[in-house]
């Protein structure tokens, strides 16, 4: 694993500085503030948006594909696929530290039989669990027997659960027919580049036709196979999402090209994720000091691609053994030891009833937002603000500031509100009292927001937030997020007009490194 600082320098010279990209985004009018027609700006990633009805039907209850669904439905990954056929500079398979987890690491591997039992156990405990994914910890298609055996067992025992898989794409063209035969209708391919010049700085090697191939040759083979696989999935009618890791100085500018390439080949959703990189991960990028993007750098890139196609912004970069709603991880409740002792009764009817209830809740959320938006439509302003929200899900402001492990970020303007991302924070409140030194971490994570919506907040953090220019708002406790965001924005706009407050641009914010851990 050689490519280190040298490669990232080469990448930096090749790519335009990020300031230029951000400038370009600022000039991009695709997300216009016109607001006419009652449609949320940027095609609203929250709802059906620009998706064709048949695609929306397939994805609307899938938390990893529909932003709105992720508030209500849960997913689980089973770690049945440990082997991988490529090496990425942001991945190190050696560690599974209990305190630091990311994609590519898991606490325990499962056999297909154990995985099937686990899925039934989880589905019986968490009725909103609708999606089973195989994402590793290696590459599912580098372990085809284990992956497809798992699908076979689950399809038999729990036919209502949607199956999906996530792959690097190298082996994908060989397996599209099998994927189709198992009714897997969602596949994610991680595509970080379409140019071997860029790819050589991301992939040190691939294992291909019984040889380890390195450098540009490796990247060329990989990109050819990925795009071929994507075209085959599209031809077979299998929905495909593309994941890309944003690596500043290496592929950040290039991802705009990737976005165009995957869109033209039929990918329906693009998920640009920030690089997770810290020395303690032991990855090449972690050790050579390659940084991840800031929150505004990530948002700028996502915004610049949004005019082209639907962007996904709610990805939590979860582990290959994650369980629960996105943003929570209940995998510790379902260890192999625990599930083997469980007496599992699969209650298909109960699950259906619960999901119907969720559906009503979900429609109420949308209706509340629409109603609130109605009289904002007559207003016109270029002002857009970001609002951070403490939530446990269900589209409501229902989390205590001190208990929040993440904040969801909504952008609001006169054209409406939309979810634009999330920010991880350390637990500010542990053991019932606030820890003074974690508050600055939280503030840095939401520094680009004008307000933070919470169910409850203590006096001390309230004052610190105010001092940082962030308005702590608890008056919408337990209400719908988007409805409240629009209501807040109306008041904000009125105050700006009356001169009570002055609207100033907020600064940037930090993206915390490391994926969710089981709490």
């Amino acid at each position, binding site marked *: *694993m050689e490519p280190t600082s040298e490669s990232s320098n080469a990448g930096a010279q090749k790519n335009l500085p990020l300031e230029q990209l951000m400038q370009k985004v600022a000039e991009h009018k695709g997300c216009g503030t016109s607001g006419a027609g009652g449609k949320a700006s940027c095609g609203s990633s929250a709802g059906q948006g620009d998706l064709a009805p048949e695609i929306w039907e397939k994805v609307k209850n899938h938390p990893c594909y529909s932003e709105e669904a992720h508030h209500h439905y849960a997913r689980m990954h089973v770690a049945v696929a*440990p*082997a*991988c*056929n490529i*090496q990425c500079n942001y991945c190190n*398979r*050696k560690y599974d530290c209990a305190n630091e987890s990311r994609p590519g690491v898991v606490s325990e*591997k499962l056999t297909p039989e154990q995985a099937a039992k686990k899925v039934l156990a989880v589905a019986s405990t968490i009725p909103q669990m609708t999606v089973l994914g195989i994402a590793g*910890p*290696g590459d599912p298609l*580098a*372990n085809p027997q284990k992956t497809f055996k798992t699908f076979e067992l689950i399809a038999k025992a729990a036919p209502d659960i949607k199956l999906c898989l996530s792959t690097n794409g190298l082996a994908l063209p060989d397996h599209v027919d099998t994927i189709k035969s198992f009714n897997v209708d969602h596949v994610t391919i991680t595509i970080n580049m379409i140019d071997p010049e860029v790819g050589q700085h991301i992939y040190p090697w691939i*294992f291909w036709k*019984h*040889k*380890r191939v390195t450098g540009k040759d490796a990247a060329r083979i990989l990109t050819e196979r990925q795009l071929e696989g994507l075209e085959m999935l599209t031809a077979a009618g299998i929905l495909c999402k593309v994941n890309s890791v944003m690596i500043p100085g290496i592929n950040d500018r290039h991802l705009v090209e990737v976005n165009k390439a995957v869109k033209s080949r039929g990918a329906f959703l693009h998920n640009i994720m920030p690089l997770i990189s810290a020395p303690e991960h032991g990855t090449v990028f972690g050790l050579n000091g390659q940084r991840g993007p800031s929150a505004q750098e990530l948002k700028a890139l996502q915004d610049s691609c949004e005019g082209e196609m639907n962007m996904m912004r709610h990805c939590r970069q979860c582990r290959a053994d994650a369980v629960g709603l996105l943003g929570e991880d209940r995998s510790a409740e379902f260890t192999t030891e625990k599930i083997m002792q469980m007496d599992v009764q699969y209650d298909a009817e109960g699950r259906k009833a619960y999901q119907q209830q969720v559906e009503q809740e979900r429609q109420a959320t949308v209706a509340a937002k629409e109603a609130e938006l109605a009289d904002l439509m007559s207003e016109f302003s270029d002002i857009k603000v970001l609002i951070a929200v403490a939530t446990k899900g269900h589209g409501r402001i229902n989390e205590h500031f001190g208990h929040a492990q993440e904040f969801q970020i909504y952008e609001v303007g006169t054209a409406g509100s939309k979810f634009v991302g999330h920010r991880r924070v350390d637990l500010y409140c542990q053991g019932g009292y606030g820890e003074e030194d974690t508050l600055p971490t939280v503030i840095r994570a939401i520094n680009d927001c004008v307000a933070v919506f919470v169910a409850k907040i203590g006096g001390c953090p309230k004052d610190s937030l105010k001092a940082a220019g962030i308005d702590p708002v608890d008056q919408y406790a337990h209400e719908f997020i988007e409805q409240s965001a629009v209501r807040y924005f109306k008041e904000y706009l009125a105050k700006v007009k009356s001169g009570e407050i002055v609207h100033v641009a907020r600064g940037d914010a930090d993206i915390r490194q490391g994926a969710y851990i089981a709490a």
Partner: protein
Amino acid sequence: MAYKIINSQCTACAACEPECPNNAIREKDGTFIIKPEKCTECIGYFDDPQCVAVCPVENTCVIDNSVPRYQAAV
């Protein structure tokens, strides 16, 4: 000689197991081991030893000096 797997380095990802042309690799106590009497260093099958080429951790599949060199059949 045959190849061996350095136990402390092995992530037990099992990538090597199906690649071995001799079925010399199997799981034992949470990691993988190579049966030296079965290992041919992939001579006669591939240009490169497959376990080395596919292993995600450098210097994990290495030559085992404690066993005699593999002699390809003439």
